[in-house]
């Protein structure tokens, strides 16, 4: 299993998209945190504001799900799934190794993003003479919550990729689902007078599981539980499908 995870990590690091991921995360986080600080002048010195800057790590979280989908579907896209399954014919072990490698890399993404937040925010806030609240317990909590969020999103990605093997369908489908599908369902649930059900949708659950709060969401713990439930459900269906599939 360790060797399989090592192989999966090597797969991620040996393509160009790896560098694209890192550069885009650094760039988007920097833009995000700069926009955040630049647009608010009054409350820069408050603990609440500084904790909210940690949420910029959400950029890495979005890339975590893309990574999760890609590390599975790229094998089907390029046919590398054949040699992969020849080395390890127990396909569920391959999927599991991908999930573990994905978690490791997603945490790396979130930490990188966090580093960029710090590199932009700390000097900036120091220059404008805002008091820093880095030692606040709330701060560490939010960092932990964002790291866990990255883990949940990458696992959701792996589960989706395991179920939908076509890379384009999985990526486009997921983005459409996140930005359109769930919104439409929320409207539908409203019409059917079951508004509460919306909070249980997969990406609403993931949303409540990042700790940043929001309207009509589950509790933080509830969000984690429901998100894990969706990951388990999609992942189990995906493993079933992947095991049955003819690799030809």
């Amino acid at each position: 299993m360790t060797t399989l995870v090592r192989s999966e990590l090597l797969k991620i690091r040996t393509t160009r998209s790896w560098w694209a991921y890192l550069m885009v995360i650094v760039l988007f986080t920097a833009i995000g945190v700069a926009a955040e600080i630049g647009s608010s002048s009054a409350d820069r010195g408050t603990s609440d504001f500084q904790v909210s800057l940690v949420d910029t790590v959400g950029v890495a979280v979005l890339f975590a799900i893309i990574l999760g989908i890609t590390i599975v579907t790229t094998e089907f896209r390029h046919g590398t799934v054949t040699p992969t399954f020849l080395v390890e014919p127990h396909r569920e072990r391959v999927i599991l190794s991908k999930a573990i490698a994905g978690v490791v890399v997603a945490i790396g993404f979130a930490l990188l993003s966090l580093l960029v937040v710090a590199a932009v925010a700390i000097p900036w806030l120091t220059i404008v003479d805002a008091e820093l609240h880095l030692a606040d317990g709330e701060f560490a909590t939010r960092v932990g919550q964002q790291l866990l969020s990255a883990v949940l999103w990458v696992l959701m990605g792996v589960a989706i990729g395991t179920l939908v093997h076509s890379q384009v369908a999985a990526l486009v489908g997921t983005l459409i689902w996140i930005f359109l599908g769930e919104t439409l369902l929320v409207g539908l649930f409203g019409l059917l007078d079951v508004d509460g059900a919306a909070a249980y949708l997969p990406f609403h659950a993931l949303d409540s599981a990042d700790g940043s709060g929001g309207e009509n969401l589950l509790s933080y713990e509830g969000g984690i539980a429901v998100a894990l439930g969706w990951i388990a459900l999609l992942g189990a269906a995906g493993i079933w499908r992947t095991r049955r599939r003819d690799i030809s």
Partner: protein
Amino acid sequence: MIEVVDLTKRYGKVVAVDHLSFRVEPGTITGFLGPNGAGKSTTLRSVLDLVHPDTGGATVLGRKYRELDRPIHRVGAVLEASEVHPGRSGRNHLRVLAAAAGIPRSRVEEVLDLVELSEAAKRRVKGYSLGMRQRLGLATALLGDPEVLVLDEPANGLDPAGIRWLRDLLRSLAAEGRTILVSSHVLAEVAQTVDRVVIIHRGRLIQQASIAEVLAGAQGGTRVRSPEASRLRTLLAAQGATVTDVGDGTLVADVPPERIGELAAANNVVLHELTVERATLEEVFLELTAGETTQ
């Protein structure tokens, strides 16, 4: 060594493999032959547990592939030259698989040397020629130093020099005691390399035999050249032989050379040449797979 028993695989209504059974004996190079679409790849993929058969199945080294301990140390396979991430270098492609199987990096360099790909190893596979991809595939198959090799059309895309290189490599691998099953739709590619052949057509077994047996069973004629060709022809025809005049005083008859010689001697016919005409393997192959080729 490799045993396929009553293997059937359907894709929708199409029967790709139809109750196929054959054995590959240890220590031999076996050619797995059939026209395109005969079901060769599906069979090989079933042997390797990549495809789930509808009936029957296959064992390698006495077990199902997925039940082998560290399978790529026992069985090496090249299925399609394109099963490589185009953005990854040849070396990294091998390193990824070596890492998964717990094979040291030094072995990656060894197999790169063996297939003469060391110089191109750090280039992206995207820029490889088909021949280079085939070599990379062979390197992949050899990573675990396996005792059984399964190669699906490894000569595809190789130039004549490449085919000779492949032939020599397969021979030297077989000389080390490995068992090799190599598929091809062009008999000539493997005819000089293989000991035995398994010929399939439309998913069914046509023949399983040694090369010598296949040739022996082939209908060959006797070629005879004589300045008195037309007289000889009449004599042979009188004996009930089927004779073809191929011009230049040369006849081909479906009679053994001994009888032609005797007949010529008895009738004082001068012969300039008397040879047994062997059907080439290619002709045998076409003959065996013909008849059913039309829908």
